């Protein structure tokens, strides 16, 4: 199994009382699937995605991606893992405002130790995949929300990760732009067999996915394959 999650629990300590955010999640995801995590706010879907991406350590349970048990990795191992296997897309894009689009995309490769000319050519390539070949020298504040999100998708793609985790990728976009973005993600998923896990509260966006997981109160309510 590509992604294997077993009895995943996550508590946050608020004051003295632990709050159970994830209450025992079991899930398997195949390579090349495009999974939507759907649920109301507070359902734990974002926390689940963050645990999956190694940004938050689980309280207990097993999270295994390929042969890596990321629930047992330390922070440096997680960094290396993210660098090689994961790409992230955020609701608020998370681009570095002082860097041009191409620099933002190339930054992901900098830490992987890719040489500068190669970095720039790969960043350019990734930006042209998302249709921004003519915007590479623009800074984030010179781009529209949809364009910024495409830059962030390009950044997630640039190191050719097997898994891309997206947290509300269309959350800040209007419906037309949201459609464009989801179509682009679908296309990438089909063409490059990358696995996508997308957190959303937008049922429209979930329609693009091959599997929709409904979460509520820290557990999986139901899973629909479509």
């Amino acid at each position, binding site marked *: 199994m590509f992604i294997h999650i077993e009895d995943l629990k996550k508590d946050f300590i608020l004051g003295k009382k632990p709050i159970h955010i994830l209450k025992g999640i079991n899930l398997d995801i195949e390579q090349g699937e495009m999974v939507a995590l759907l649920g109301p706010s507070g359902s734990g879907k974002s926390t689940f995605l963050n645990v999956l991406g190694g940004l938050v350590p689980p309280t207990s349970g097993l999270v295994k991606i390929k042969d890596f048990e990321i629930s047992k990795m330390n922070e440096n191992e997680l*960094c290396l893992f993210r660098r090689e296997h994961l790409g992230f897309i955020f609701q608020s894009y998370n681009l570095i405002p002082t860097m041009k689009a191409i620099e933002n995309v190339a930054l992901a490769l900098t830490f992987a130790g890719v040489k500068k000319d190669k970095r720039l050519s790969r960043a350019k390539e990734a930006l042209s995949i998302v249709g921004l070949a003519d915007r590479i020298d623009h800074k984030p504040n010179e781009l529209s929300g949809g364009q910024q999100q495409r830059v962030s998708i390009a950044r997630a793609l640039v190191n050719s990760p097997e898994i891309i985790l997206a947290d509300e990728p269309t959350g800040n976009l209007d419906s037309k732009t949201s459609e464009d973005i989801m179509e682009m993600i679908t296309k990438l998923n089909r063409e490059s067999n990358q696995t996508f896990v997308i957190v959303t509260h937008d049922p429209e966006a979930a329609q693009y996915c091959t599997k929709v997981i409904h979460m509520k109160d820290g557990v999986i309510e139901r899973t629909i394959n479509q």
Partner: protein
Amino acid sequence: MNKQELLLLAWENLWRMKFRTILTIIGVVIGTASIIVMVSIGSGAQKSIVGELSNIGSITTLQVYPDLSSMGVSGISGGKKDADKIILNDDAIDDLKRIDGVMAATPVISLSDVTMETGRDEYSVSLMGLDYKALDDMRYGTTDGKKPNANEESSVILGQEVLSTFSYSSGAASVETTEILPADLIGKRINLVVSRTNEAGEEEYRTEKVKVTGVLEATGGSEDYSIIASDQLVNDLNEWKTGIKINFDKNGYSEVLVTVEDSSVVTTVTAEIEAMDFTVFSMQQILDSMGSVFGMLQILLGGIGGVALLVACIGIVNTMTMSIYERTREIGIMKVIGASINDIRDMFIAESTMIGFIGGGIGVIISVLISLLINLIAGLALGGESVTISYITPGLVIFALIFSALVGMLSGVRPAIKAANLSSLDAIRSE
């Protein structure tokens, strides 16, 4: 992430916040420049004073005297102590010559209150009697003319200052016209006149005609104010004047000059001669004690300059800490897209080290300019002479560069660790 990429990234990061980077660098520039300029003034003073002393070449000459302290004691404890006293005679000189590194040891016979007549003028001078056979080993140089040969016992060398300092004019002409240079006397014959009072209470004069063969290079010692003559001549004049024949073997010489191979053996030879119970005086001893005084002066001046660098250091810490708050989100993003804890830490340390190093580099350039300016202005104030008030040694430049980079690096450590330990998730959520 390799080091080169890291430095490049740090460099780019610095220029993304140009204004603050430049301000912080200016702080380091001022700090470094004030240290360098301060220390350079200390070095300048040292260079001009020590330089004046050591340039004159007498650093390899040691003056050896009979043990002066025990002479004082012998008077109190009577003749017994006198018998133990080591006499500075020819046997002792042979012992001195056997010390490793000693090239020559020759007694000096001095005679003061001698009148020198150049034909028109008279000067009161001292004679320094040396063994001419040892002259070549003694490293006395001449600025004009040459040293007399071993057999030219009636030839003399004039000290640099022999005419200027103790001169007086006997003729009616003004000072300017009677003032002649020692070099003008080369090849000429001069009279050395010694006087004594005989038993009848009458003044008697003895005149020796000698030939000037050269002018001695300045040594900084008593030679500059003396005429160097052969030991026999001076001894003859001395015996005639005092009426006493000195037995040097029994009474010893009052002074022996020891010439050593080079300045590196001065200290060891000095120690060995002192172990023989003689008193040694050398330029090296003065230079040593001056060296420690100037060392302290430089530390003091450097410390004053260091206050400015300390302020700059606080500036770096401030800039880097502010930078973390400002770039928290950026740090979070970098960690999410694959920067390791070490990458973030090294990146911040590299940034602050660069601030230190660049500031240090510019500080060096500026302090060189300031140093030139100080010397120029001081030169003009002293009437167009070239003076060294401020002297920047290569060592000082290297020290300043390393020190400023180190200060930058250390200033960055704490902010860098703080940045590296930020939780990536919290960081990207921050605004």
